[in-house]
């Protein structure tokens, strides 16, 4: 049974749109400025940008306001908008080893060169509802920001830090994968995702996957429905510089700087693998990278990346299952479409059940007649 389109309902749809606006605005005491969302819902903005696959904090805030806070709808709006824009440039490969780090932790090694920095996190604080947030004082907050922000100009701290995985690689504990030839990555926004997927297609799909879906699948692997339960080798959050080749120049090393993108990068360490070439035992690494600060998604991505390198019957090891079910626009759109009219589809089901009932009652009448 194919789909049958419906028509009409224009006036009701327009009224429903107005009613939505009424519900969004009728009981407000002050207007929600998108800038408030952008600056005070930082982690939600990061999530929307990551899942929307577009780094644009200001637009993510507008999308959230329009979606009345629904992250799936906001992501949908971001993806829809990005599809209207041209793409004229590809960046140089972003170098996360020169990231301007604001947070860097390792759950594997206590002492890492450069040290661990907790950065902006609530990982180690009690999850107690802070009722004092009801009565925050703007002046007091500004004073706090000014006082806390003050630093001694003489004080110098490191801005970039070496990556743990590079140190492990130097010690021969991780396979050395430096290759001379760079493979052109697949772009799932322009090429259909096919299976088995290339590594670049897999990572791109995971990078814009839905946080909740990825966390669930990674969790299933750690609970025993899979074989991956890693230790975080390094989780870093910071700003990475984005540059593009200069279009009117011939110097490939040079380029133009566009700005910084905040990213979360996770390298998780798993059990040993035997190196095929050297027959050495080496750690297997899982890789995660997300736009913004989205640490759980980064860890989940690293688990799923590694899990998809293993073979087995579990869901988290099934590439097609994982990659086709973590995209929020696909899943949200498909489940959501069930709300739209399916009258003809349902009519055919109704016809079938009635026919079956008639057949049954007819057969029942025949059987009854035979007994009398």
């Amino acid at each position, binding site marked *: 049974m194919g789909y049958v389109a419906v028509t009409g309902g224009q006036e009701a749809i327009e009224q429903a749109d107005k009613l939505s606006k009424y519900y969004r605005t009728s009981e407000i005491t002050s207007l929600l400025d998108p800038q408030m969302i952008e600056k005070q819902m930082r982690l939600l903005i990061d999530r929307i940008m*990551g899942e929307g*696959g*577009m*780094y*644009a904090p*200001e637009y993510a805030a507008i999308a959230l306001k329009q979606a009345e806070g629904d992250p799936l709808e906001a992501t949908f709006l971001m993806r829809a908008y*990005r599809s209207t824009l041209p*793409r*004229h*440039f*590809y*960046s140089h*490969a*972003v170098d*996360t080893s020169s990231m*301007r780090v604001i*947070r860097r932790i390792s759950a594997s*090694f*206590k002492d890492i060169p450069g*040290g661990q*920095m*907790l*950065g902006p996190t609530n990982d180690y604080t009690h999850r107690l509802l802070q009722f004092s947030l009801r009565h925050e004082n703007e002046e007091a907050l500004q004073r706090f920001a000014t006082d*806390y*922000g003050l*630093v001694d100009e003489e004080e*110098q*701290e*490191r*801005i970039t830090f070496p990556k743990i995985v*590079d140190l492990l690689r130097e010690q021969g504990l991780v396979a050395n*994968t430096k*290759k001379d030839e*760079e*493979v052109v*990555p697949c*772009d*799932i926004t322009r090429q259909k995702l096919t299976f088995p997927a290339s*590594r*670049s297609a897999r990572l*791109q799909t995971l*990078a*814009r996957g839905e946080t909740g879906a990825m966390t669930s699948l990674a969790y299933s692997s750690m609970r025993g429905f899979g074989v991956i339960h890693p230790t975080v080798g390094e989780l870093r959050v910071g700003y990475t510089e*984005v540059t*593009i080749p200069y*279009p009117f*120049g011939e*110097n490939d090393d*040079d380029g*133009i*700087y*566009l700005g*910084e*993108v905040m990213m979360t990068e996770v390298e998780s360490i798993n059990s040993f693998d035997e190196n095929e070439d050297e027959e050495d035992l080496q750690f297997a*690494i*899982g*890789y995660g*990278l*997300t736009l913004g600060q989205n640490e759980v998604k980064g860890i989940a991505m690293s688990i799923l*990346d590694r899990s998809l390198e293993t073979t087995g019957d579990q869901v988290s090891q099934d590439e097609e299952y994982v990659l086709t079910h973590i995209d929020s626009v696909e899943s949200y759109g498909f489940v959501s479409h069930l709300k739209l009219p399916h009258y003809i589809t349902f009519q055919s089901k109704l016809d079938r059940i009635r026919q079956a009932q008639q057949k049954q009652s007819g057969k029942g009448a025949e059987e009854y007649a035979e007994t009398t």
Partner: protein
Amino acid sequence: MKKKRLTRILVEGRDELAESMAEEIEKNHAIYLDKQPQKSLVMLKNKDSVSNQPFYAGEVLVTECGVSIDDKKGIGVIMGERPEKAYHLAVIDAALNVRLKETESWGARLLEEEEAIHKRHQGEAVRAARTKVNFDTMEDYDD
């Protein structure tokens, strides 16, 4: 100064700096707008630590603008919706490509701005360093 360093200073620096430099050029030279400031996307290429091969992590919203001065082109591209700054960047780029006289005095101002950016980044690094941690293990630990 290489384009990468120059544009880093102009993008990260105060908007007034790029604006004043572009105004200096506008006063004395005809500027042709080849491409109105428009929004577009830049695909972000990243390398994963496992294969050391590139993949695309997402796109970045940018504003880009193109101008010409004396038949030499200039381009301005900046993250976010920032049409004015994209235009100023394009004018500065074209002026440098033509080697206009006005650009000769920019060096000191650019270096000063670069220093201010460095200080700002240092401030952020110092604040992050306040959260440095050394967890003690309650049993013996071999590094």
